Structure formats: structure tokens, C-alpha cells
């Protein structure tokens, strides 16, 4: 796609909880975004930003095999995360990587960066809406 930020329209979370402001990388198994907050975020907010950033993983073959639309809605099922070093910044980059899936249940890792320093990391699991289903 010529402008990755056109993808932002697919983010179902809107302001003030739509934390992803730019899409830098949108690959099959890796994405990178810029996330921003109005004040220094909590670990929970960074975890939500990780979940939102995972929307920009393409996962074409995995979604096709699971009968999941490419732009499926997902419901967050579980999170684990930790601070690596606390930060008072309001803007970060978030890298997400596909780990695995079982049918429509997907697990993704995320790392939050302040410049070159990783400040938080974790995993999110979500169930994606199958074709014909409503979450």
C-alpha cells in the first residue's frame, strides 16, 4: 500500500482510546507503529497499545486457514506484560510479532520502544471474528 496510514481507518478503537497514530511497518508477521497518549501511560495502556498495534499484522495465510476475514474484529482475551524500564514519555514505537494461532485464537508479542530502548514487553491473545460471526 502506498500510504500505510490509510490502514489507520481500520483501527476500531477511536480517540481517546485509539492509541496508534502512525503505521511504520505492516508485514505478514511483524508490524511497527507509533503510539501516543495524552499523559505518561500506565503498563495497561501500553499493553492495549500492543494489542492495537497487532491489528497491523497481515497474517494472510493464517487468517485464510482460520476462515477469518483480513479485517476481522478481535476481542482481547488475555494479556501479560512488564515494564523493562519506566518511562514518562507520551509517545513510543511498538513492535509486534506473530507467535502462533489455533484457528481464530491468535497470540502476538509486543515490545514498546522509547528511541532505541525497550521500555515494556508482553504478549496479547485475541479471538478474531470468523466469517459470518459477530463478536
Amino acid at each position, binding site marked *: 500500500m502506498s500510504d500505510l496510514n490509510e490502514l489507520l481507518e481500520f483501527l476500531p478503537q477511536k480517540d481517546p*482510546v485509539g492509541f496508534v497514530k502512525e503505521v511504520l511497518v505492516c508485514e505478514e508477521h511483524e508490524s511497527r507503529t507509533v503510539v501516543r497518549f495524552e499523559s505518561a501511560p500506565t503498563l*495497561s495502556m501500553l499493553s492495549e497499545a500492543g494489542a492495537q498495534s497487532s491489528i497491523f499484522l497481515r497474517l494472510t495465510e493464517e487468517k485464510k486457514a482460520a476462515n477469518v476475514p483480513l479485517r476481522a474484529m478481535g476481542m482481547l482475551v488475555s*494479556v*501479560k506484560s512488564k*515494564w523493562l524500564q519506566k518511562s514518562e514519555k507520551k509517545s513510543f514505537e511498538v513492535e509486534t510479532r506473530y507467535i502462533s494461532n489455533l484457528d481464530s485464537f491468535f497470540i502476538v508479542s509486543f515490545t514498546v520502544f522509547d528511541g532505541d530502548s525497550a521500555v515494556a514487553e508482553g504478549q496479547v491473545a485475541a479471538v478474531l471474528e470468523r466469517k459470518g460471526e459477530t463478536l
Partner: protein
Amino acid sequence: MSQTYLSNGLYRIISQSNESVEIKLTDASHPIFKAHFEGMPLLPGFLQIDMIAEILGKEIDAITSAKFVQKILPEERLTYTIAPTKSGVRVKLSNEFEELCGDFKLKWH
């Protein structure tokens, strides 16, 4: 602890003790419910965790595990139950029908 820019006006505390906190969510006109999601208002999972941390004045160092079991809608009455564990706390969130909505293992200070 005061409510943040996201949780401001989102809930009110009904009762509070060392072991449990009961709250009532506001209605669907709150900006959070309009944004998450348009036409399908749900309490975001991250706020389920942040609300109890801010009520108790805690800062979360690690989310050892957080399971979001059931959707939470505007105007629901919710109860947090807090129990210490060997490595932190376990917080269970249930609705007025005593159905489990969230189960969180946290490290906080």
C-alpha cells in the same frame, strides 16, 4: 488517587474495603464507551485493570496474567475482589450477577 484523563467520570465508587471495591459504571455517553467501540460500547480491558489500581493508589509493575472473561457494558455494577498472593495480588472482577468478568494477577506498589 484521582481519576485519569481516560477514567474521569467513567465510574463511581459504591463501597470500598481492604478486600473489595464496588463500583458503578457511567452510561454509554461517556467518551470511552463512544470510542470503544462505535455502536458497541464495551469497557476496555486495560481500564478494568487501571481503575482498580487508581482506586487503591497503586502503580502496576507487571501484569503477570490478565484474563478478560466477559464483556462489560455501560451502567454495570461491578465488584473487585483483591487477595494477596506470594508474588503480588490477584484481583477478580465480577458483575452484579456474580459472574466473573476479569481475573488479573498483578505486581504493584
